[in-house]
C-alpha cells in the first residue's frame, strides 16, 4: 500500500501530496511531492531535490519543512517498501 505523508493546511486542501508509491524509480531513495500534473523527487539520502525540473522553488516551504521533520518516518517507510534498496 502506498504511503502518504499528511501535508499541513492550507497546502493539503490545495492538492499538495507527499507519497512513496509501491512502484517508483528505485534509485536513489526518495519521496515524491505531487501537485496537479507536476512531481518533484526529494532524496532521502541527500535531503535535497533530485531533479532540476520542475523548479524546486515552487514547492511551498511548509511542505518541505513537513518532509524534513518526518525524515526518520519516511526513511523507515521507504526501507519497508524497498528492502532491496534501503536508504
Amino acid at each position, binding site marked *: *500500500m*502506498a504511503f502518504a505523508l499528511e501535508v499541513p493546511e492550507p497546502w493539503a486542501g490545495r492538492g499538495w*501530496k507527499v*507519497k512513496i*508509491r*509501491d*512502484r*517508483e*524509480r*528505485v*534509485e536513489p531513495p526518495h519521496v*515524491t511531492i*505531487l501537485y*496537479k*500534473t507536476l*512531481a518533484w523527487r526529494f532524496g532521502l539520502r*541527500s535531503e*535535497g*531535490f*533530485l*531533479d*532540476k*525540473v520542475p523548479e524546486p522553488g515552487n514547492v511551498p516551504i511548509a511542505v518541505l519543512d513537513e518532509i524534513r521533520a518526518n525524515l526518520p518516518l519516511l526513511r523507515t517507510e521507504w526501507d*519497508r*517498501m524497498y528492502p*532491496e*534498496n534501503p536508504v
Partner: protein
Amino acid sequence: MNEHLILIAPRGHADRALSRVRARRVRTKADIKTTLERFQGNALWIAANEAALHLLLSSLTRQAQGDQRLLVLHARRREPSHYLHAFFRHVLFADEGIYLLPFDEMIEAIDSPDRADLFVGASFAGETDSVILYRGDLEPLVVPLTWFRKRPDGPPDPSRLAVADFGQTIRLGKYEAAADAILYDFDSDYRRRAKKRAIETDRSFGGALRRVRLQKGLRRGDFPGVTAKEIARIERGEVKRPHAHTVAAVAERLGVSPEEIADF
C-alpha cells in the same frame, strides 16, 4: 509535444471547466470539415460532451492528412468504433472497461504541455495479464501485470484499476505505481529526458548497472555466471571496462540489450 489540441465546442453547449483549455475551438459542421480538409498537422481532438460527439460524427466525411487522434469524454453511444478508426489513428472512449482520469483532472492533464508523460486512461487485458495505459497524446503503452511487483501489504489488484493524481499515478486497488517509473522502464526517450533533468547522477557504467539492476528488482547474486562480488566491483567502478561476455550475461538477465544498460 507537437500535436495541436482541437476542442469540439458546439454553440449552446458551453462547459465552464473547458473554458481554460488552450485549444483551437471548432463550433460547427463547417468548422470541422474545413479543419479536416485544410489541416495538415497532427492533432488531438476532444469531444467533451454528447453534443460535441454528435457534431463530430455528423461532420466526418473526409479524411485528414496528418495523424489525428480523438478523446471522447462522454460515455459512448454504440457507434461502431471501426468508423472512428477510419478517421483517427488513436481513439480513446469513456467506457468499455477503460478507466479515464476524473473529468477535472483530465482537463488539467490534457492542457499540460507534458501530457504525453501523463496517463489519462487505463484498461486491463485479461487475455495476457497486461495493462494498457493511454498517455495524454493517446498513445497506448502495454505493461505486463508482473511488472507491478508484490509488496508486503498485498498484490496489485487489476480488477480495481484506476488513473489518479492527474495522470501521475496508476492504481491497482490500494497499490500505486508512479507514471514516472513506468515511463522510465518502457520508454527509452522518456529515460533520456529524465536523466537530463536529474541534478546529479553517477554517469558511470557501474552507476547505470546499479540503477537498472535495482529497477528490475534483482540482487547482485542473481546473475548466473557472474559472481555477486564481480557485480559489486563493476557497480563501485573498480572494474571500469567489464568483459563483453560479462556485459552480455548481465544484460540477458536484466532483459535489456547490452548497449541499453548505459541508458539507465
